Every structure is written in C-alpha cells, then in structure tokens.
C-alpha cells in the first residue's frame, strides 16, 4: 500500500505494508537514520518521534497509521547548521555520551518545552521517564533540559 504523510515539513509518499513500523519507514525508506532502534519493544524511547506534536515510540506505530499526519524526527530540529537550543544545551552540558539515546531524549524534551516553557523538575522527569540512557546516569540530561528551557524563555 501507499501512504502519504509529512516528515519534517516535507510531504512524502512511501510504498509499505501493515507489518512495517513507522521506525522502519523512517530509517529504511526515507534514510532518516537519526531515529534509533534500542529495543523494538516500546521500552527505551530511542525511537521517539513527534506525531502531530506528541512524542511516540515509532517502533510501536504501524506505518499505515501515519497516513495524512505530521512526523517530526531529530533531523528536523536544527535550523540548518544552527542547533536547536535543546541540542546546544545537550552538547554543552555533557548530556551526550555514546549518543544512541540522544535523539529520543532531545525529542521528548522538545515536546515538553513546546507545551510548557517553564517545567518543574518533576515535569521534566515525567516527560523523560520513558527514555532510557545507560551511559550518563541522567543528571546532565536534566541540566541540559533546564538550561535550554531558560534560554528559550529568554529569547523565544
């Protein structure tokens, strides 16, 4: 079957089937390999993308479900060479080690900051509790999100 949807603001059309996951369409058909597969079981959040603005695990979404909808992947976040403030904060705060979990965390945090420009620590934890990181111990990720939130409030 053929599905049409928007990825990072661009209309795409892909030949696929009901067994194919959104994750595979992104990675294999559209070569957007920034979305990672950490488990394929909905447990790790490495495959997080935004579907109509809300974070989802793309490994759990059958491709046909995105027909007519809007998907944002990590590749759609930076403005050309300029990093999004969240991305810049992750780099500066040392929130990236191996980097495999990073796209998922950045997108989960992005979804949070879009709906809540001044999140409390508790709200940050709630937004990120579905993402696993085995390298950082999470502390620097939380600092990065706090820093980015502050900066985005100062210069929206």
């Amino acid at each position, binding site marked *: 079957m053929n599905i049409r949807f928007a990825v990072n603001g661009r209309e795409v059309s892909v030949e696929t089937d009901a067994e194919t996951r959104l994750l595979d369409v992104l990675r294999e058909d559209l070569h957007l390999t920034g979305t990672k597969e950490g488990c394929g079981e909905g447990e790790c959040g490495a495959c997080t993308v935004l579907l109509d603005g809300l974070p989802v695990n793309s490994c759990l979404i059958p491709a046909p479900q995105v027909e007519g909808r809007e998907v944002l992947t990590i590749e759609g976040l930076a403005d050309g060479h300029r990093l999004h403030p969240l991305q810049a904060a992750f780099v500066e705060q040392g929130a990236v080690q*191996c*980097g*495999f979990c990073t796209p998922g965390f950045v997108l989960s945090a992005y979804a949070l900051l879009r709906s809540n420009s001044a999140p409390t620590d508790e709200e940050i934890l709630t937004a990120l509790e579905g993402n696993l990181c085995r390298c950082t111990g999470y502390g620097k990720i939380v600092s990065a999100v706090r820093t980015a939130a502050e900066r985005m409030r100062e210069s929206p």
Partner: protein
Amino acid sequence: MNEAPATLIGTAIARPDAVDKVRGEARFVDDLAFPGMLHAAVVRSPHPHARILGIHAEAARSMPGVVVVLTAADVPGENIVHVIVDDQPALAADVVRYIGEPVALVAAETRRAARAAVDAVRVDYEPLPFVASPLAALEPDAPQVAVPSAAEGGNLFNRMVLVKGDVDGTFAVADVVVEGTYETGYQEHAYLETQGMIAVPDGLGAIAIYGSMQCPFYVQNAVAKVLGLPLAKVRVVAAATGGAFGGKEDVPSLLGSLAALLSSATRRPVKLVLDREEDVLTTSKRHPSRVFYRTAARADGTLLAIDVDIVLNAGAYQTLSSAVLWRSLVTAAGPYRVPNVRVVARSVATNTVPNGAFRGFGSPQVIFPHESQIDLVAERLGIDRVEIRRRNVLHSGDRTSTDHLVRDSVGIAETLDRAAELADWTARLERAATYNRASRETKRGVGVACVLYGVGLGGKAPFLDKAGATIKLEPDGSIAVAIGTVEIGQGLTTAVLQVAAEGLGVPIDRIHLSPVDTSRVPDSGPTVASRGTMMSALAVLDAAGRLRERIERVAKAHRIAKREIAQRLPEIARFFWLENFDPAVEGWASTEPVSWDPATGLGDVYPVYAYATHIAEVEVNVDTGEAHVVDYVAVHDSGRILNRVLASGQVEGGVAQGIGFALMETIEEKDGRLIVNGLTTYRLPTIRDVPLAAAVDFVEALFPAGPFGMKGIGEVPVMAAHAAVARAVAHATGRNPTRYPLDPPRIKSLLGEKP
C-alpha cells in the same frame, strides 16, 4: 612533553562528537549501508547441551530472497573465535553447549527474509545431559561442558591462588573473625545500541569490517583466523558505538566472524545486527558469583587476614573468564592493607551463555563482600565505618594484597576524607537516626564503600598493554591524528584531542581525530580496563613531541619565532611540503613492566591503581521492600582529570549502573535458559531511580607515568556504587544482605530475618 603550560588539560572542552549525535547524524553500524548489501540472521541452538545430528537447509535456501545458508562445514579457515583460549567455534559443528549458540547462518536480500529463513532451517539434535550451576558442574559425575583442552580438569576452567603470610595462624589468634557467603547474579550490559557488524569485500581479496565494538584488533585477529586470511587483508573500522561497558569486548569477535563468513561466501557486503531480545539472550553478561569471605581483625579494627573462596559461572566457553577471574583474585582485599591473605578463585564451565567483560571486570563480585565484611568488623568492634576504613586504607609505602609496594599516586585516604566531608558523614548518620526514630514506614540508611582498581591489563596480559598513534601535518596546517582505541561514549576522542593539542602546542580545532581503522595504526590492544584514553594519550604525546620538534626546526630555519608557531602553522606546513620534510610521525606507548607469579599470586600486578570512595543514602520502605537512593557522594582518585565534565559523566553513569546492579538488575536462569524478554522484563534504572544531584569530586594524586599525571576512570564508579548502595540498605534495615539484587521481595525477606 612540551614545556608550555598545560592550559587545555583539565578544562571542560565540549565533545566534538556530540554535535553529530544531537543532530542524529552520527553513523552507528545499523545506519550504514553498502550497495548490494545482504542481511544476516543466525540459527541458534534451542538446547543447553545437545549433539547436532544433521542440518537441513534446503527449504530455507529456496525461500524468496535467501542467498546462502552456511554451517560449520563452510568455514574456510579455522572454526574458532579467538579470544584467549581457542575453545569457542564460530558455528557449532558437533555439539552445542548453550541455548543461543550459533549453528547456521542465513544471508538474504532483506532482514525480514533472513529472519524468516532462520525458522525454515531444520536442525536435528540429540539432547545431552546438561548442567547450569557452577557448583553442580564441579561434581565428579557432572556432564562434561568444557572443551577438555580448555579446562584444567572436568568443568574447572581456571583455578588461581593468592597466598601471602600466615593466614591460619592469624585467624587462630585474631580478636574478631567475621564471615559470610555473598552471591551476585547476572548483569546485562544493556548498551542502548544492540551489537552489530557489517563485512564488506574490500578489493584485492581483502575484507573490511565496520561495527560497534571496543576492540578492533581482537576482531581483526578473529576474522583473519576464521577466513584463513593474513591480518593485512582484514581491515576493521569502528563505527560510532552506542555504549559497550565490556559487552562489546569479546562478542564482536564472534559477530564479526559470522558476518565475514557470509560476506566471503557471497562476495557481497553483509550486515548482521542483533535485535534486543537476541542480544540479551545470547551475548555475554557479568559473571554470576558465589564468594565465601572470612576476615580477621584486631580489637582496634586493624585488618589482619582474609580467607576468600571465589567461584564464577563462566558459561560454556572460556572467552574472557580467565582474565575476569584474575581481577577478582587480585582485587579481593580491596584498597586495604592486609598482611595475611589467601584467595582461591575458580571459574567453572556450565551450559549457559558465555559470560565476559562488564565494567569492573570481576571486581564487583569481591567488592560487595569486602565492603560488607569491613562493616561487620566495625559493627562488632563499635567503630565508625569511615573510621575503620581510615585505619586500613593503603598509603604510599604500603603493600597491596599481592605484595605490590605502592609509592606513587595513592589517593584512597584523600577520597575517603573528602567524601566524608562532602557527605557530612557524622551529622548525616545522626539525621538518619533521628528520621528513623520518627518514621515507621520508611527507614533511612547511609553506606560507604572504598575501592581500588588496577588500571590496564596488568600482569595477566602484559603483552597487550601498548598502543600506537600517527599524527600527520597536512599541507594546509591542519593535523590528522589516528589512534587504535575506540570512542564508546566515554569521551576518549575529546580527551585525546586535548592531549594532542597540548603536546603539539596548537589550537585544538586544527586537529582532527578519525575513527579507529586497524590499517592506520599498529595493534593498540583493547579499549578496556580504563586504559583506552591513557594509552592512546601516551602514544599521541610520544608522536606529538617528535612532530613538534620537527615543526620547531622548520620554523627556526624560516625565522618564525616559537610563540608564532601555532598561528603560522599553515605557512610552516607549506615549507614541510615544499622542502620535503616528513610530515607524519608514529607514536608508541607501553606501560611499565608488571610481574605476577602464578604459583603465589604475588607481584607488581598493575602499573598503577585508581581509587574511589562513594557514600550513598537510601530510603527503604519496610512495607513494600522498595529501596530508593536519595542522596549520593562520589569522590575519585584517577590522577589528573583531563576533562571534568567527561569524568563526572563517567562517574554519574557508573553510579546508575551500580544502583541497577545492587537494587534491580538480574536475570533468572532455569534449566540453562535465561528467563528474560529483552528490556521488557530486564529492568534498567530510569531517570526516577538515580540521584540527580549527586556530588562528584576528584582528588588528583598524580601518576608520574600517565599523560599529565592521569590514570584511568571508566570502570571505577560502578565498582564502588553498588557496594555503597547495598551497605546503605544494610544500615537502613539493620541486616547484612548477602545477595543481589536487593529488590522488594529480597528486602522484605531480609527484614523478616533476625537482625
């Protein structure tokens, strides 16, 4: 070394690899594709022990998209995955020894087709008696698991001893003796990126391997052996690697060999990426252990003797078990002066997945006991737990349990003092006591743990402790650096760039460090044992020193002042080019000689030790049995810290893994089968399980032979963390836990025991 002030050393340069990673542009192995690439899948044994009677692959071969199915008969070279002892086949030929052992391989046009074909390969087995417990495997009538040539006898893979002083005599006269038997289970690495390898025909009969790994030179050796190729025809390139923690030390040699077999048979690129379930079920883990530990002390708390018996479950093949066991042996006494020592350590073959390296490498299994035991001694004698450690930790001029006289860089006492100060130890104990008097449902506890870690590979494998580097001045004044140890997330790229910039006296942004490619540098050993950054930094410094000299000579000839060199490097590089100066320099590093006597276990077993003290505070819910870490202090001596953000990142990540090991991570085994379903049932610490405001600090006891005085750090944090947490649980519950993980059921049963 150049005499310029070490301005870059110790500064928190942001990692250059982070930019690609936050943009989603870093290329991990599954992000790579090559024209004509096939996908691999592995047919694995469903039995813990069985004879292979026949493999029927015709149906699978004729399925759409399937290109080839291979068995042991198709291996062109030796059917061996070379790690330490050559007992593990790439593909089982006659007998399978664990559930998940590779038996046949499929390559197909798509991943889906390859996986579908796996189910169509029929293998006839004759099940054999099996044994999954190491103690049962040591019984005289146990089924024979170990390949006989790989064992010292029966299923005993290795037996090692460490004997110093008069142990029995000391126990007979000691004021206090305490003992316990401690057990730990599996810990899964759960690197977020599963294992994967791509093999690509590289022209002229050579093969290239791209993959997720710690040890490109191990993979090179393994692939050469299994294909029967000379080493020069096997080129291994490390892709961005999504976490490793020891799990990508030996397993990539097996997976690289499997991908290479398919690529060589089909003459096409072949990608083998494990899915999560397959990765958790079939790759190495931390060795489950059983350690009996007896401690003798004087009435003032001075440790006098230890008597330790260690048994590790090695799994079906040797892989790294002998090296892991060796570290258990020489670490058993911890960072303490113990004059009389007896340690007997055994690793045992069982019909389970081969266990291997996991951050800490055999040491957490003895740290849990040694930290529990010293607390028990303190309790018996009514001595404060920090104070008893103060009285026993090593100082410069002391001898370790292996009789190693340590002089340089012995910072354990400072880490202990600093940690106690940051934690406000005495006041914190009082606060916890006050809290506990007022609270029935939740109890607070504070734990302290001290560790020592021998940096590098040590006396068991001294020939591996070396590294190479090349530095090339390009004609435009930029600088290309190549090394042989791998960025696995720990921050090696950044630290090595800092050292290169410092050694060359040029701005860091002029220097580029490329991913490891075995064809560019000599065998630099593995990226393990907290050695990767130190060894490559030493090799880079060696090369940088000589290139710097050459640059200064050319500058002088052209009347360019020394202080102008950094700025006028493009001009200087041009002179190199025009006047035919050699712009490339090789660097080399090897560690100081180490020694080890297998008969006694004694010797100067490592070039240097890193140390740490951690203090954890937990809250235990006595109704539910849940334990939660509420506050944390970690102080490390890793010599000079090249980059604090990276180093504290290593510590925080290790603390999270230690919390996981102590409180929640484990896998049950039943009849040789691991009872686990990927990350769905293997529970990792989430953002809610860790102390987000951990206090991390460093005392820098400089190591004169290290680059700018550094030692290693990578493994140490996890080693201290689990013990600090377990001892905090002990304090909160008033019981002495002897088994991990301290999950709710275990804590509840602990609370049911008599204090």
